[in-house]
């Protein structure tokens, strides 16, 4: 139907026409229309097909609260058609349909519905074993599910997050919320008033309500109120932490006080075919009329259980809808100005009647008429019936408070069975409720209550006011019917539209023994669809209470958990905040062709050159360092300055070795165990002065070790200061037989001869005119100098060392070569060659444990553990060649059919021409020459010979040159 007169509605602009498509057909709408309102204006009512039976579904709430209106836009699935605005060229598709929402081959499921009882999935598909994955899941997945996502397409758009801080955040900008915001803001508090709709005002915008105060105007001009529309508060978390969705941004708000003025959710009635398009909430019809100027139908039947229904009826009349009858579930005796107006207009009102069945058009495409029944003494549909033709049914039978957020905030829900009303109490102390969510139904009461709560929130924030408004009375009656459920023997009386659950499904779940609501939910899946039980929870509770002879208060409702409504993964992801660290030489490595490796959060060169030549390049880097000279960036090594009169004592307690007598100008190995005696870190202590140690720690361990040191000293209170200078010092390890010759060209204030600067010595001076800490350690087993300089000058150092070494054929080597060379020397890497139980004894490193010390962390535990040694030991092993199956780290060492240990390091050594490795093996097999069995990933077993882990230069002649 093309309406001749232009539509008039609060949200639309009749002068701006927009064209969009739905299921491939083009429609015209107006600026401000939602997809659903624009389609309704075009008399297109079917928006989707139901989840299980593929029944046609249309507008139910017009409030983006139900799954009926979920549609797909481009690659974005499950968009609310009654929230998403149309735009020119917008392409919308129905979800969960074969061809289109109107013509859906899956509708055959509707005929099969009696073969799909509640718990169908649980009962049917799990036998025989494996049949679910192979047969049923693919079939059901194709028929069920919401939307189709093309995972090959990247998410479009810029999604981010932002923090925000307010004194008071008011969620819901209806009459109570606006009044609360104004009252709080009047005291000087900073207030955020947010609402999910495009306009503030709440029910004032669409319901037959009028307030003397211009709350919208007052709120808009208030200096202390910030207003966000189209903003969804999607959860409440501790200390008033509120995630608010607004466009592509997730706001993470912290409020001193939160006021939930979230209002009510109108509830449907249950009767046969209550899900047909054309059957909607009274408030949905009002939203269509007032917000969008859409006539919701031509001839209507109004189902009433409160006076709000009469307001809807009058609105329908004024919109030009023919009102066939009002069917009031209540007994006669309800009077009031609205009813008088209706009787004056000669509207037929049937008191004490219910809607028993809605009659569909062919294919269940729309409601065609209704069958009404007089309610009998038992409160069920009686024999007296009446049939009426209509194309619209509006329901106003009751509400539940929008309790999701208050309950997340710790509120407890109780049900007053006499008044048929939920009450919420006991929420977090920073959270207040205002208006109808707290049981106030009269407009003036809501506004008055909002003002009270707004003021209370501001006072709780520390603001002052002389005003003391009075709390409105609570006992003005409830608009809720105690049980608007009229089961039909032929079913299709839907309790949960999302999950296609009928009255009998709930009844059968209870009959199967699931008497508790949480169990009914899990068995039947009631309330587990996209609308999260907004329209099903109360009806389910009513049914469970009825069939188990308990009150609704005893039955309760299921737990409310975040999020309140749908949210996108892109929103949760936001921007990419994955920190990584680079050394000051990063650009130089790039220029030299580095292939990068992530070590902890550091980017380190793995090797230099093209990836296809990796093996050859790594071997060349090794050979050059062994036979000539190489340089490696060691800036990522942890560095700690430990200073103070107790510095040596502190290291003595933190590490296993002894440091008090370490002379100035010398270094000593550091091994750290935790309180359980497990090896957790290692490094080198350089004694710079009597009270000053420069301590290295593993790249990935240093931040933890530093924090741990501070924790211990918070207890020991030694006179020592610890500073993490990891980033402040960058370094180069210059290693190889020609290392001294290279350094001699760069250094004129440190005597470098083996006598002046022997192995394990520490010196300070300048290298390439840069102040440097230089020490001789032998991690890769060659003559080597570790040169540490301030980061600002490190790229200059790298350049200078490279230049000085050019004449000697120096080349940089990466982490891969370094790891290989340390393996050739049998040096363990903590974390790779150790696990959560490794003791120094298992590593054959008891030499690094000074048992004569009175204390070190782990000492007591090691004493106990060393009484009964573990069954394993870290051993070196060799193989002549790598088996075809390949052996790698974590492959098992097996013995007599049991696991004896595992490989921790394995590689082909280009220096030795054979495969070498470290592994945990049975301690009885730790003798040199023993054979151990290694199990490859494919299950094949390979013999290896136990060897000294010091595979290369076991006498350490080279590193001590």
């Amino acid at each position: 139907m093309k309406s001749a007169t232009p539509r008039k509605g609060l949200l639309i602009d009749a002068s701006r026409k927009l064209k969009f498509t739905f299921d491939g057909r083009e429609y015209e709408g107006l600026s401000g229309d939602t997809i659903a309102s624009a389609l309704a204006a075009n008399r297109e009512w079917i928006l989707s097909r139901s989840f299980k039976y593929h029944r046609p579904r249309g507008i139910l709430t017009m409030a983006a609260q139900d799954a009926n209106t979920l549609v797909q836009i481009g690659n974005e699935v499950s968009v609310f058609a009654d929230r998403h605005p149309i735009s020119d060229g917008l392409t919308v598709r129905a979800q969960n349909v074969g061809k289109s929402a109107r013509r859906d081959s899956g509708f055959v499921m509707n005929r099969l519905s009696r073969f799909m009882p509640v718990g169908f999935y649980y009962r049917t598909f799990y036998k025989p074993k494996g049949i679910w994955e192979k047969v049923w899941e693919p079939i059901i997945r194709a028929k069920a599910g919401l939307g189709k996502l093309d995972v090959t397409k990247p998410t479009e758009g810029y999604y981010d997050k932002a923090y925000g801080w307010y004194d008071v955040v008011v969620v819901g900008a209806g009459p109570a919320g606006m009044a609360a915001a104004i009252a709080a803001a009047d005291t000087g508090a900073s207030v955020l008033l947010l609402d999910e709709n495009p306009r503030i005002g709440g029910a004032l915008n669409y319901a037959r309500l009028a307030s003397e105060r211009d709350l919208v105007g007052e709120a808009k001009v208030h200096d202390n109120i910030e207003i966000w529309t189209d903003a969804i508060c999607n959860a409440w978390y501790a200390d008033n932490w509120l995630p608010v969705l607004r466009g592509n941004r997730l706001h993470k708000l912290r409020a001193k006080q939160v006021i939930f003025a979230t209002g009510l959710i109108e509830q449907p009635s249950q009767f046969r075919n209550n899900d047909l398009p054309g059957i909607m909430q009274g408030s949905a019809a009002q939203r269509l009329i007032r917000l969008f100027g859409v006539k919701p139908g031509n001839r209507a039947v109004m189902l009433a259980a409160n006076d709000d229904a009469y307001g809807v009826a009058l609105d329908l009349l004024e919109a030009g809808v023919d009102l066939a009858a009002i069917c009031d579930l209540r007994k006669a005796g309800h009077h009031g100005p609205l009813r008088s107006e209706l009787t004056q207009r000669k509207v037929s009102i049937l008191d004490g009647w219910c809607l028993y069945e809605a009659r569909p058009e062919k294919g269940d495409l729309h409601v065609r008429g209704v069958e009404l029944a007089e309610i009998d003494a038992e409160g069920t549909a009686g024999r007296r019936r009446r049939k009426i033709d209509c194309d619209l049914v509006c329901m106003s039978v009751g509400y539940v408070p929008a309790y999701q957020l208050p309950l997340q905030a710790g509120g407890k829900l109780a049900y007053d069975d006499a008044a048929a009303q939920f009450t919420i109490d006991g929420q977090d102390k920073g959270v207040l409720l205002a208006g109808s969510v707290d049981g106030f139904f009269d407009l003036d009461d809501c506004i008055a209550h909002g003002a009270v709560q707004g003021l209370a929130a501001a006072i709780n924030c520390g603001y002052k006011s002389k005003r003391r408004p009075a709390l409105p009375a609570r006992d003005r009656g409830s608009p809720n019917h105690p049980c608007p459920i009229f089961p039909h023997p032929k079913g299709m009386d839907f309790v949960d539209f999302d999950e296609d659950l009928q009255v009998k499904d709930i009844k059968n779940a209870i009959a199967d023994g699931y008497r508790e609501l949480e169990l009914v939910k899990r068995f039947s899946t009631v309330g587990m669809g996209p609308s999260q039980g907004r329209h099903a929870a109360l009806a389910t509770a009513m049914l469970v209470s009825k069939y188990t002879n308990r009150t609704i208060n005893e039955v309760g409702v299921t737990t409310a958990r975040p999020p309140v409504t749908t949210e996108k993964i892109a929103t949760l992801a936001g921007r990419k905040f994955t920190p990584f660290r680079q050394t000051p030489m990063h650009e130089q490595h790039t220029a030299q062709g580095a292939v990068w490796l992530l070590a902890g959060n550091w980017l380190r060169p793995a090797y230099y050159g093209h990836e296809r030549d990796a093996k050859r390049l790594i071997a060349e880097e090794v050979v050059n360092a062994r036979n000539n000279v190489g340089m490696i960036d060691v800036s990522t090594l942890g560095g700690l300055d430990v200073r103070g009169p107790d510095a040596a004592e502190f290291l003595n307690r933190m590490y296993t070795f002894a440091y008090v007598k370490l002379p100035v100008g010398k270094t000593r190995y550091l091994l750290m165990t935790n309180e359980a005696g497990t090896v957790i870190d290692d490094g080198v202590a350089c004694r710079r002065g009597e009270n000053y140690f420069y301590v290295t720690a593993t790249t990935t361990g240093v931040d933890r070790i530093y924090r741990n040191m501070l924790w211990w000293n918070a207890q020991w209170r030694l006179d020592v200061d610890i500073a993490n200078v990891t980033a402040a010092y960058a370094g180069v390890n210059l290693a190889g037989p020609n290392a001294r010759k290279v350094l001699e060209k760069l250094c004129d204030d440190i005597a470098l001869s083996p006598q002046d600067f022997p192995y394990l010595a520490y010196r300070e001076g300048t290298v390439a005119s840069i102040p440097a800490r230089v020490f001789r350690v032998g991690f890769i087993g060659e003559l080597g100098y570790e040169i540490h300089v301030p980061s600002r000058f490190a790229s200059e150092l790298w350049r200078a060392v490279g230049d000085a070494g050019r004449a000697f054929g120096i080349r940089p080597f990466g982490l891969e070569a370094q790891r290989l060379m340390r393996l050739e020397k049998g040096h363990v890497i903590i974390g790779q060659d150790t696990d959560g139980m490794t003791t120094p004894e298992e590593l054959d490193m008891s030499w690094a444990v000074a048992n004569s010390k009175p204390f070190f962390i782990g000492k007591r535990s090691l004493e106990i553990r060393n009484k009964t040694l573990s069954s394993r030991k870290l051993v070196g092993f060799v193989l002549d060649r790598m088996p075809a199956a390949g052996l790698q780290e974590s492959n098992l060492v097996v013995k007599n059919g049991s696991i004896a240990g595992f490989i921790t390091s394995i590689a082909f050594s280009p220096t030795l021409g054979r495969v070498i490795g470290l592994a945990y093996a049975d301690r009885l097999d730790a003798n040199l020459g023993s054979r151990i069995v290694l199990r490859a990933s494919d299950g094949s077993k390979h013999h290896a010979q136990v060897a000294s882990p010091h595979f290369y230069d076991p006498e350490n002649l080279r590193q001590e040159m």
Partner: protein
Amino acid sequence: MRWALPLQAIEELNVKLMTCPLNGPRNITEFQCHGEVHRQPEPSGASDHEWAEYVWMSNNTAGVVREWWCHTPTNFWFLAERNTVTDEILATFPVPADGPLGEAS
């Protein structure tokens, strides 16, 4: 490039406030909990069993406990009294001069 950055962890949405004695109230994501404060027995005096209890066992108290916490950007260690049943943080304070349990340790 051969390396791949680890999948970005989606930030924990449930962010309480904690008051650092040095830095004031902050989102709890800035802090690390180091567990309940418990007394270390004298290492040389304790029996093997006592020592193992100390290293491996936790009181797991349901109620108010005194815990070690660290403000990670500053690596500042302090103590908190927290109710492990309600997760309510009752107090935070620097390590007292007479030790974390209030007497010389």
